[in-house]
C-alpha cells in the first residue's frame, strides 16, 4: 500500500470515528452531570428537609456556581473544548457562557464592558426561551385552560 492510498483511507475513516467519539464523550459527560444533578437533588431534600422543588433550585445554583468558578479560574474552557455538547447543553454551559462573556469584556470597563456584554452569549437562550414559553403557554391556555 502506498502512502497516498494509506492517507486516503485514513481521511475516509477519521471523521466518522471522531464524530462517534464526540457523541460518546457528550453522552457520558452529560450523563454524569445528570447523575450529579440527581445526587444533589436527593442530598438537599434529605439533609435540609425541603421539597424537591426548592431543592431543584439549589441544584441549579450549585452547578452554576461551580461552572462559573471553574470558568473564572480559566480551565473550564478546556473542558468545554473536550466535552463539547456534554458541557454546554447542561446549565453549566449557560453559566460558562455568561461568565466568559463577562471576563472577555472586562477590560472595556464595568458599564460598557461587563454591563453591555453580560448577555452577549446567553441572551439568545433567554430571548427564545421567553418567546417560545409565552407562545406555547398561550396556546395551552387557550386550548386546555392552563
Amino acid at each position, binding site marked *: 500500500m502506498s502512502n497516498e492510498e494509506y492517507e486516503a483511507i485514513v481521511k475516509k475513516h477519521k471523521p466518522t470515528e471522531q464524530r462517534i467519539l464526540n457523541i460518546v464523550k457528550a*453522552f457520558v459527560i452529560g450523563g454524569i452531570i445528570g447523575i450529579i444533578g440527581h445526587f444533589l437533588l436527593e442530598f438537599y431534600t434529605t439533609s435540609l428537609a425541603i421539597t424537591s422543588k426548592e431543592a431543584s433550585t439549589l441544584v441549579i445554583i450549585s452547578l452554576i456556581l461551580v461552572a462559573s468558578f471553574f470558568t473564572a479560574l480559566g480551565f473550564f474552557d478546556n473542558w468545554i473544548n473536550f466535552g463539547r*455538547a456534554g458541557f454546554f447543553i447542561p446549565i453549566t454551559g449557560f453559566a460558562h457562557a455568561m461568565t466568559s462573556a463577562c471576563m472577555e469584556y472586562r477590560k472595556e470597563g464595568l458599564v460598557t464592558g461587563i454591563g453591555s456584554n453580560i448577555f452577549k452569549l446567553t441572551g439568545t437562550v433567554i430571548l427564545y426561551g421567553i418567546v417560545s414559553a409565552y407562545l406555547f403557554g398561550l396556546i395551552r391556555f387557550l386550548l386546555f385552560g392552563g
Partner: protein
Amino acid sequence: MMTYLYAFLFSGLVCAIGQVILDNTRLTPGHITSLFVVLGAFLDIFNIYDRIVLWAGGGAMVPITSFGHLLIHGALVKARETGIMGLATGMFDLTASGITSAIIIAFFMTVIFKSKN
C-alpha cells in the same frame, strides 16, 4: 436507585443529540441551546416534560431544556390563578433564582478573578 440510571440516560441522550447536531450542521452552540430551550417549552404543551422530571429526577433538571420547561410552567401556574395576564407575570417565577444567581455569580467572579488571556 433506578432514577440515577434514568438521570444518566436522559441527560446523556440530550447532550448526545446536541453533539450530533453540532457535528453535522453549521449550527453553533448558541443555536443548539436556543433550540433545546424552545423544545423544552414545547414539550410542556402536553405535559411531557413534567413526566420526564418525575422519571429522571435531577437528570431532567440539568439540561438547558429544563429552562424552557420552568419558564412555561411558571407562566401557566400564574395564568391558572389570575387569567391570561399571568403568562407575563409568572414567566420568571421558577427561573428567577437561576438567572439571578448566574448574573450575580458571573459578576463577582469577573470582578474577583483576572482573565487569563
